[in-house]
């Protein structure tokens, strides 16, 4: 049978193998976007500033989106309580600081608390319903959302709280561009935590066992992986990522209140779906893309005011999904029938 080869396919075939993987619509589009951002930043100081601010915000979306993806891969549900868990751990940091710890002492102590919190949530609330149905687990996460929100308001009150700034208020000037230290710090911390987590999954025995448990629980069990334990640890790491997102989101909003993570959770959903739900890299790239895009649109497109940002983000998401239903990095699921 003769196969019809399209012109782009023929061009791609003649390239060396390492290049061939890149000559696809999505990598090409991302590369074009990067070029656009770099050129724009070189031409305009405002543009550069907004891009960096967008990157910082995007990594926060990306961290929380990555937490959602980790849970999705391990438990096959969206954890609707992920944002509230992050918010609660941010309150823990607030409490620790008010007890006299320095910001960074509280930061790392909070990450430990978050890990334990994630493990406990999985063991106590998720494990009992995990084998019943997906809907049951989803309902439980929605219940957790309300429960955590209620508990935090009961313990700390719904009024605004203030935390010390993790990064100085210094502004660096490079050429005519002003970079806020806070944006750079947020960017650094988020990227570092994502990279650490990636290395853990990629290079350690624990990471390998966790991937095995998430991919094929039954056969993982039979090659000796303690699947239940791995899933709990996975929830722990997702909670840690969420805590990083919460701790980085707080200074960006200047105040701490129980609704801290609610808009961010929606952006993280959008980022995760944009990247393709099952793809950790997709979640991070999706988050960053969303952050940068929204900042630039807010700056240059007059009618997208702060009230319109969220609907606008979802409108864009809808368009992307119409073109590529599995998300940018997702693979269409093909099932034999």
């Amino acid at each position, binding site marked *: 049978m003769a196969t019809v080869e399209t012109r782009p396919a023929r061009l791609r075939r003649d390239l060396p193998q390492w290049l061939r993987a890149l000559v696809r619509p999505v990598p090409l589009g991302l590369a074009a976007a990067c070029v656009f951002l770099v050129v724009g930043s070189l031409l305009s100081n405002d543009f550069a500033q907004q891009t960096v601010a967008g990157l910082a915000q995007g990594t926060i979306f990306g961290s929380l989106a990555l937490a959602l993806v980790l849970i999705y891969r391990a438990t096959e549900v969206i954890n609707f309580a992920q944002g509230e868990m992050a918010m609660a751990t941010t309150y823990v940091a607030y409490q620790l600081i008010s007890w006299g710890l320095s910001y960074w002492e509280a930061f790392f102590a909070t990450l430990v608390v978050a890990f334990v919190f994630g493990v406990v949530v999985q063991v106590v609330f998720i494990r009992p319903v995990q084998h019943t149905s997906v809907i049951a687990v989803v309902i439980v996460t929605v219940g957790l959302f309300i429960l955590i929100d209620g508990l935090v308001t009961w313990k700390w009150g719904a009024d605004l709280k203030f935390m010390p700034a993790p990064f100085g208020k210094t502004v660096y000037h490079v050429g005519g561009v002003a970079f806020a230290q806070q944006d750079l710090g947020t960017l650094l911390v988020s990227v570092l935590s994502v990279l650490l987590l990636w290395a853990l999954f990629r290079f350690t*025995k624990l990471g390998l066992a966790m991937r095995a448990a998430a991919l*094929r629980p039954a056969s*993982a069990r039979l*090659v000796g992986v303690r699947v239940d334990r791995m899933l709990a640890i996975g929830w722990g790491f997702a909670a840690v990522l969420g805590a990083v997102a919460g701790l980085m989101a707080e200074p960006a909003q200047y105040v701490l209140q129980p609704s801290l993570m609610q808009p961010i959770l929606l952006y993280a959903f959008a980022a995760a779906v944009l990247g393709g739900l099952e793809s950790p890299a997709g979640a991070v790239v999706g988050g960053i893309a969303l952050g940068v895009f929204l900042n630039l649109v807010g700056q240059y497109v007059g009618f997208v005011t702060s009230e319109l940002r969220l609907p606008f983000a979802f409108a864009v998401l809808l368009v992307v999904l119409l073109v590529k239903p599995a998300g940018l990095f997702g693979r269409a699921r093909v099932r034999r029938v």
Partner: protein
Amino acid sequence: MGLLSIENARLRFGGIVALDDVSLDVAEGTIAGLIGPNGAGKTTAFNVITRLYRLESGDVVFDGRSLRRTPPSRVVQLGIARTFQNVELFPTMTVLENVLVGAHAHARFRRESDLRRSALETLEYVGIERYAHRPATGLPFGTLKRVELARALAASPRLLLLDEPAGGLNHEEVQELGAFIRRLRDELRLTVLLVEHHMNLVMQVSDHVHVLNFGRVIASGPPAEVQRNPKVIEAYLGGDLSSAESAHPVSSAGETA
């Protein structure tokens, strides 16, 4: 008593009796075949041995020790590894990573570099070292079966359970597989329990054959004897004894279920 014994195992799914008072014994250092028509309970027996299913009554004894209270994730540490009928690899991992997951199970405290080396050696042993760094999806089915075999071997088992290893293989590959299973017994001193529809293979490699039908053991013995057993012929051919002389209860093309 052999390395593995199933003793009076009984298991029902709703109204269907999957295992009905099944007892069988696998002697150390031998290859045992487990055959039977579709739905006879062969894979169920595997799932009982690896503790994915819980018996209603009866017991599975490995190396003198009851498995009744062993969680599935501990079974491999006791020395039982298995492969699956429909290949259950970890799809986004590389071939080497798949094998490493198997190696970690039994070697908690060995150095990572040693583990990688021995995983690569295992891949070499099954003849697929050149695929080590390829993702486990997209490889030919026969190769995937070998990856699964390597993953099972990496756990250094004493008993290897093979669920239809010949399924989807061509004639030459089946011959190679038969020789390979014998090598496992002779070189690695493994005990093998083999579920297979491919009669030629089973009869060639097995020291002992057990036949299941409707969840019951209907025959047990050396291959030549089992092949002549009228009950076995009836189970496969539905009572047509006239073709008993063919000695191949199922066509050698093999069913792949």
